[in-house]
């Protein structure tokens, strides 16, 4: 799992430019699924056929937050717009990298009061001396991801893009372990979640599943003077009650809790006050689809140093596998 997580988190894939991470995932899952296709928005849709059960959509998003170049100034500095929720405070002093390998650092205009720090005052410095030199390496419309190598701290794993590559790892591992199932499993590695659940929305429309389960990260309430939240690193797979994009179908949520209890999988209940997931889009597909979320507790989301607990990740795999192998009657 550590190797897989390292590979996945260090791969490049801001929303709209998921190519490299998609290819990486494709290679991982190819031996374990019956059909693979890529749809109009770049979603990687993998089908593992069952023996006549339900159509189950499992979702993890491949994209990460990042920046898109909007302007190259005469001195070779790059101005940018954010891709997804990028906080200017967390951006200051960070390293970023483009698909072609160009590196940059984020600097800021003079700001006397920290309250005045906004994205508009930041820029990327790729070490170019003028516009011409910069334009030889990047152009307006190019996207960059934050750069940070992954590191293991005992049972904790720290990297950028654990949101949502940790879930991609869970989904890949699920496909490897699940074996024969009654259900048709559609494993969707979705694009553009960070900019509005867009990949999942169109993928779910195309598939029209009987039930949808997204796997995503969620915040925790276990750091000093944190938000009030009953989720902690190491306490197991989080079963989501609600976030700002959906109220998980209660019958499905209760079924997931029962499954965890029956299989001795460690779990915790999660209410997320700010933040949405692909299940928000899946639930609203066509005439409505029962939807739930398995969450991986994660500290420091949307920073280059997100942190998960590897035991929690394992419990999430176990729960996902157990659900796939169960009748899913609720």
């Amino acid at each position, binding site marked *: 799992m550590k190797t897989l997580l390292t590979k996945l988190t260090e791969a490049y894939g801001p929303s709209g430019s998921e190519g490299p991470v998609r290819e990486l995932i494709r290679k991982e899952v190819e031996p374990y699924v019956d059909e693979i296709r890529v749809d109009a928005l770049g979603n990687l849709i993998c089908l593992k056929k069952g023996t006549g059960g339900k159509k189950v959509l499992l979702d993890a998003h491949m994209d990460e937050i990042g920046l898109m170049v*909007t302007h190259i100034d005469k001195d070779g500095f790059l101005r940018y717009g954010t891709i997804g929720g990028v906080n200017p405070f967390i951006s200051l002093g960070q390293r970023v990298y483009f698909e072609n390998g160009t590196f940059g650092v984020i600097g800021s205009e003079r700001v006397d009061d920290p309250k005045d720090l906004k994205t508009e005052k930041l820029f990327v410095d790729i070490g170019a001396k003028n516009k011409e030199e910069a334009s030889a390496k990047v152009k307006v419309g190019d996207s960059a991801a934050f750069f940070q190598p992954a590191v293991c701290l005992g049972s904790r794993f720290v990297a950028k893009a654990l949101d949502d590559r940790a879930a991609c790892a869970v989904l890949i591992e699920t496909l490897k372990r699940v074996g024969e199932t009654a259900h048709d499993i559609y494993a969707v590695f979705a694009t553009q979640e960070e900019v509005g659940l867009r990949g999942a929305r169109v993928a779910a429309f195309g598939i029209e599943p009987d039930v949808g389960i997204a796997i995503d990260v969620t915040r925790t309430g276990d750091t000093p003077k944190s938000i009030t939240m009953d989720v902690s690193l190491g306490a197991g797979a989080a079963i989501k009650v609600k976030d700002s994009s959906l109220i998980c179908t209660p019958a499905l949520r209760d079924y997931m809790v029962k499954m965890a209890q029956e299989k001795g999988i460690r779990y915790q209940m999660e209410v997320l006050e700010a933040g949405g997931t692909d299940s928000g889009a899946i639930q609203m597909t066509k005439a409505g689809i029962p939807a739930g979320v398995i969450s991986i507790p994660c500290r420091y989301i949307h920073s280059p140093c997100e942190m998960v607990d590897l035991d929690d990740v394992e419990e999430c795999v176990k729960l996902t596998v157990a659900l796939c192998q169960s009748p899913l009657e609720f």
Partner: protein
Amino acid sequence: MELRELTSLVGVSGNEDEVRRAIMRELEAMGVSYETDTMGNIIARKGDKGPRLMVDAHMDEVGLIIVHIEKSGFLRFYPIGVPAAVLPSKRVLVGKDKVPGVIGAKAIHLQERRERDSVIPVDQLTIDIGAKSKEEAERKVKVGDYAVFDTEYEELSPGIIKAKALDDRVGCALLLELLKEPWENVQVYAVFSTQEELGIRGAKVASYRVNPDMGIALEGTVCADIPGTDPEGYATQIGKGAVLSVMDRGTITHKGMLNQLVKLATENQIPFQYREATSGGNDAMAIHQARAGCPVAAISVPCRYIHSPFSVMSMADFEAARKLLIAFVKSVEGGFRP
């Protein structure tokens, strides 16, 4: 139909009647078949075979809606897409009969010192049509009527146009130009949509119906190459050519389509520029998420001062957008797939 006529037509988001009627007549004169739906979109089609390409422009403009008539005859209104700052001291035309009115402002002599620091809030403004009572006013206008700015189309200097509603009548004009060309091996679905300014409403319904393989949104887009803004804040510049979006709040432009547009512009020496901003949104947001999704891009004309009584554009930029649009559709006809 020329831009002069297109921009003079009245069609605030929610009542695009006059614009729609004029475009319908134009399409009939051109022999192009079309349908309309519950949202009032016009969905025209040209070409019988090949991929379904949806090209979209919105008919609606920003304006005001009358919400209440005071006993004194003043009209209370809500703005639709118009910031409060541009409202005081302007002339408007109200309702189907285009009754002239003015948005008065408290004379400066009557204002307190501290009032002068703030934009006058909308609930302190009214439209005055000169009526002396509610009854008199109700003979000419009613609650629910829309009002537009009374702006005349003018050529400020050769090729530089001032008009209201360039956002998005330039898009409508480009779409009509596109429909003048013969199309056989591409099914061009030209959608004149409604209520874009209320949240991309018409396009959502139209794109579900059309179910395109790919889409292009045509817009009159932000252009802030004006004093007080730094170059990184211009977004676009008058005279620098057709505008290609890279990303906005609703869409990340499909890379394959963007590359093709850049390639065609370069090969055909069509001046172009990138939309150097990621704010705002347009009908592409709905088009690319319709049903099972499709690739999209946007081609725009830079317009200064949009969402105010007037906007300014360059016919040279319009011409560049027109050429690029036609070149793109020709390339789709010739086999290009994103």
